């Protein structure tokens, strides 16, 4: 974005009164408005707006001949205009809702409606220094390569500039775009394929975070095992589960699932452990309520993590690598796959570092390593002994007679 005024008016101090933005600073709507106000109130009331579809600072870096190859630049007219202008201003980063609204803002400031033109129609127009005019040139962005688009746009700019010179009227020119060429994603990836996590809000802060890829229970009902999938009711996108009965404070956190045929209660607590000198949280129990039966599962043996971290496991279930141990024998199986939970010290809406239930080496790997190491030690020992065996060679004399061993006793 830059504003130029023609050479006629020596208003070089105009825009230098406003401090240019610092490097890396993104100019927001308010700031842009103030720049425009300054430029339009004190400067010429004729505004030429070049509007590109997409723009980014990288385009100027790549194609502007910035690497010592000035002759390859795609912006000769633009650079010429900047240099000849008496009051140029470059805003390297403008937030795109602001740049999108620049037409509207200019319209308001100048109190005139925009005229959409192209270089041919401009020569037919007669401009007046006193009456305001807003001329908008939509620069084409066909499916050509970026460099061709930019060169083409620069050509248009050059033609318009020369036409304006012949008009001999002071004007302000603005070159910007409707949207950025590259959208920068900050923060974590958007996993729209995955279900969002359920969180318990305690006022402003999030208290408990729970996420699972799937949640299913199987119960023994009238002699038969039935499977029920609770995933959509708990984690579905359109669902905001009512977590009545959930609570959390500094040491205990309780998560109660949404009301329905099946209800999940998850109890966790955190405390300080003296031996390891840090706070840990454990998932004490998972209770499943259905048909007025309460089935309880203990999980404190395996679901634990330091209090600052979250716990994550591929599968938390009471069968198949069971993490949940049922209290009584005939309790139903409770299964949740790809599971993350954090009950305390939640900052922001994201899980903290996930203490995974699977370590780097599995027990089998450790056993194999131990045994292999032992055998390698044995091999090394044996090899060393064999390699330092030496036969007696003190009396070896290759040129002398062979020894004779008498046959008698």
């Amino acid at each position, binding site marked *: 974005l830059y504003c130029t005024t023609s050479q006629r008016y020596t208003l070089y101090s105009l825009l230098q009164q406003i401090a240019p933005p610092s490097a890396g600073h993104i100019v927001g709507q308010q700031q842009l408005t103030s720049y425009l106000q300054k430029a339009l109130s004190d400067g010429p009331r004729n505004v030429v707006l070049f509007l590109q579809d997409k723009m980014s600072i990288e385009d100027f870096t790549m194609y502007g001949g910035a690497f010592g190859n000035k002759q390859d630049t795609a912006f000769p007219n633009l650079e010429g205009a900047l240099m000849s202008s008496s009051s140029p201003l470059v805003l390297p980063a403008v937030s795109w809702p602001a740049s999108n609204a620049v037409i509207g803002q200019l319209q308001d400031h100048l109190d005139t409606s925009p005229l959409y033109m192209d270089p041919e129609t401009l020569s037919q127009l007669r401009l007046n220094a006193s009456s305001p005019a807003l001329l908008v040139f939509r620069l084409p962005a066909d499916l050509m390569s970026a460099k061709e688009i930019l060169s083409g746009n620069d050509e248009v700019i050059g033609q318009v500039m020369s036409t304006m010179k012949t008009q001999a009227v002071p004007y302000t020119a603005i070159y910007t775009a409707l949207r950025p060429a590259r959208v920068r994603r900050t923060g974590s990836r958007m996993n729209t394929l995955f279900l969002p996590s359920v969180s318990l809000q305690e006022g402003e802060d999030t208290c408990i975070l729970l996420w699972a890829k799937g949640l299913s229970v199987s119960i023994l009902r009238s002699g038969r095992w039935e499977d029920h999938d609770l995933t959509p009711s708990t984690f579905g996108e359109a669902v905001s589960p009512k977590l009545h009965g959930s609570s959390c404070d500094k040491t205990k956190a309780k998560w109660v699932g949404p009301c329905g045929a099946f209800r999940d209660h998850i109890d966790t607590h955190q405390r300080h452990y003296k031996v390891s000198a840090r706070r840990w949280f454990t998932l004490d129990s998972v209770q499943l309520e259905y048909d007025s039966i309460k089935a309880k599962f203990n999980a404190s043996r395996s679901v634990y993590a330091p209090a600052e971290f979250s716990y994550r496991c591929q599968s938390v279930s009471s069968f198949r690598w069971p993490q949940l*141990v049922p209290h009584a024998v005939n309790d139903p199986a409770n299964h949740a796959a790809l599971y993350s939970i954090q009950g305390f010290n939640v900052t922001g809406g994201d899980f903290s570092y996930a*203490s995974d239930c699977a370590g780097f080496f599995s*027990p089998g790997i*450790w*056993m194999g390593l131990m045994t292999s190491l032992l055998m390698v030690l044995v091999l090394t020992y044996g090899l*060393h002994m064999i390699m330092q065996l030496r036969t007696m060679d003190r009396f070896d004399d290759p040129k002398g007679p062979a020894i004779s061993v008498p046959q008698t*006793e």
Partner: protein
Amino acid sequence: MLLEWMMNGHAILYTGVTLAFWTTILVVGLCYTIFDLGFRFDVAWFLTETSPFMWANLGIGLAISLSVVGAAWGIYITGSSILGGGVKAPRIKTKNLVSIIFCEAVAIYGIIMAIVISNMAENFTGTTPETIGARNYQAGYSMFGAGLTVGFSNLFCGICVGIVGSGAALADAQNANLFVKILIVEIFGSAIGLFGVIVAILQTSKVKMGD
């Protein structure tokens, strides 16, 4: 002289391996510390997740193998002396076989203990530390300990008897009176192997593996 020592292939190899090993340990430890993941270094997890069967069988294997190493080493030392001395003094051959028998006894202790320990290994149903139970863990560790005990005792006993026996043979070749006196030294050396066996029996006396 250092250069000559360094030119030795053995020295380079051992130095290199030791250096690599300790560097790995250091780097891994540093990473655990820097990233505040020290809580994942869990010795209890290692001891409870590894199978008691591994420990038991390691004990059995070490019992016999270390004993045999001791016996073999002793026999090779004594045997070469007897054979060498026997060239010039053939009368020592028969008497000095006693030294060889002492060394062999060490190997016999080892195999007896290996059989005794392996008879204690039973099947158990249980895959998690709770279901395996404390008794099975105790059995696994006891068998490992007993195997180590008898193995190392017999290893050093065998070497000891071997070196003394070699001396006995060479002394006997010079002077026949010396043999009986040196035999007493050998008997003392042999007793220490027996100590190892006794302690190993005590360690495995309370072992009961199974459900």
